[in-house]
Structures are given as C-alpha cells and as structure tokens.
C-alpha cells in the first residue's frame, strides 16, 4: 500500500519557469491537501479538495493552481516561479467521515523545490 506518493522529490527551477508537482493516493480518500513548509513557519495550507471536481483556497494560494479530476490525483501547478516559492511541499489526504477525530492526515514524503 503506497499511501500518498509525490513526485518529483527535488527540483530546481529558474525564475519565471512553470512546473507541476504530482500527488497521487491509493487509499480512496475524499480529501486532499497541499501544504508548504518553511523553516520555523510550520505547515501552511495552499489548496485543498473535498472530492473530485471540487477545490478551494487555503491560507497561501497565490502563485499556485490545482485541479482534481480524479479521486486519486491532486496536482499542484506553479506558474511563473518566484524565489518566494522555494519551499518543501507536502501533499496529504484524509477520509471523509463524521466520526470524531477521524480526519487523520496521511502525508507524502515531500517535494523540495528551489527557485533561483
């Protein structure tokens, strides 16, 4: 059982380039999330999705776009990369249930992006 798989693990971009971070999960989770992690700043939510075809902005969405055409995949698109987007990006998923405490996030291993 692979869980949440992110690719690539590392990437260096030049300012102004674009790229897509891929995320796929095999747990049939409805909810998927993209976070960025910067040193000492914790995890900040970029975008999230509650199901195929439904996405919404998180705390820091500017400069990013997402799509959710299937339950399994939730790619994050960076347009016109900027140095401020240098970060470690984590994709996560969780199941949709009303049971208390059921929203346990399963994270991928992360994608380290450097914009020069």
């Amino acid at each position, binding site marked *: 059982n692979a869980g949440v798989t992110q690719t690539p693990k590392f990437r260096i971009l030049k300012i102004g380039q674009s790229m897509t971070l891929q995320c796929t999960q095999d747990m049939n989770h409805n909810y998927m999330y993209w976070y960025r992690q910067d040193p*000492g700043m914790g995890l900040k939510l970029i975008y999230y999705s509650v199901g195929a075809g439904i996405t919404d902005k998180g705390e820091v969405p500017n400069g990013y776009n997402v799509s959710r055409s299937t339950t399994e995949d939730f790619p994050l698109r960076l347009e016109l990369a900027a140095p401020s987007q240098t970060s470690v990006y984590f994709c996560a998923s969780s199941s949709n249930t009303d049971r208390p405490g059921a929203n*346990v*996030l399963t994270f991928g291993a992360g994608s380290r992006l450097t914009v020069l």
Partner: protein
Amino acid sequence: QQQVKQSPQSLIVQKGGISIINCAYENTAFDYFPWYQQFPGKGPALLIAIRPDVSEKKEGRFTISFNKSAKQFSLHIMDSQPGDSATYFCAAYTQGGSEKLVFGKGTKLTVNP
C-alpha cells in the same frame, strides 16, 4: 492570525529526560487536537490525538494533557530517547467544519545520548 500557538520553537533534552511541548488556541469551536511527528526528510505522521472531553491521553511514553478552560494542551514525552528527535506539530480541527487542520509552527526536539 495564528490560531494555534506552539512553544518552544526548539528543545534539547538529555536521554531519559522529559520533553514538554505546549500549545494554546483561541477558537473554542476546535474539538480535536492531534500531534504530528516529523522526522528529517519525511512527511509528518499522526502521533497521538485528544478530544476536549478528556483531560489526558496516554500512549506509551507519549501523553497529551488538555486544559479546556485555559485553552491549552501539551505533549509530554517521558524517558525521552535519541530516536524521538524530530519536529513535533500540534494542530486543531473542528469536526464538521471546513475539514482543515490548523497547525502550530512546530518544535524541533533534540534528545542527546
């Protein structure tokens, strides 16, 4: 606006000692408080969680203490081991809300042998 405040930012403990990480929140609608553990180069993983209707939850060497009136909760790691060296995040969530966890900024724990 930081909804969950975590301290300290870093913590160094000797092997066998007790590690204590504190978190405070403002939103009384939060009703689920998990702790995530992250090792270098890995994604965070759920360590332990608590609901506000209990004051303490223990799993092995890890204990969450919860003070609803003070809107504070803390993680205690007893008999800390070098293998516990990691970054710890507290978080908060509202069941039936926006399904979004709010994370603290994290505490980097180093346990010296």
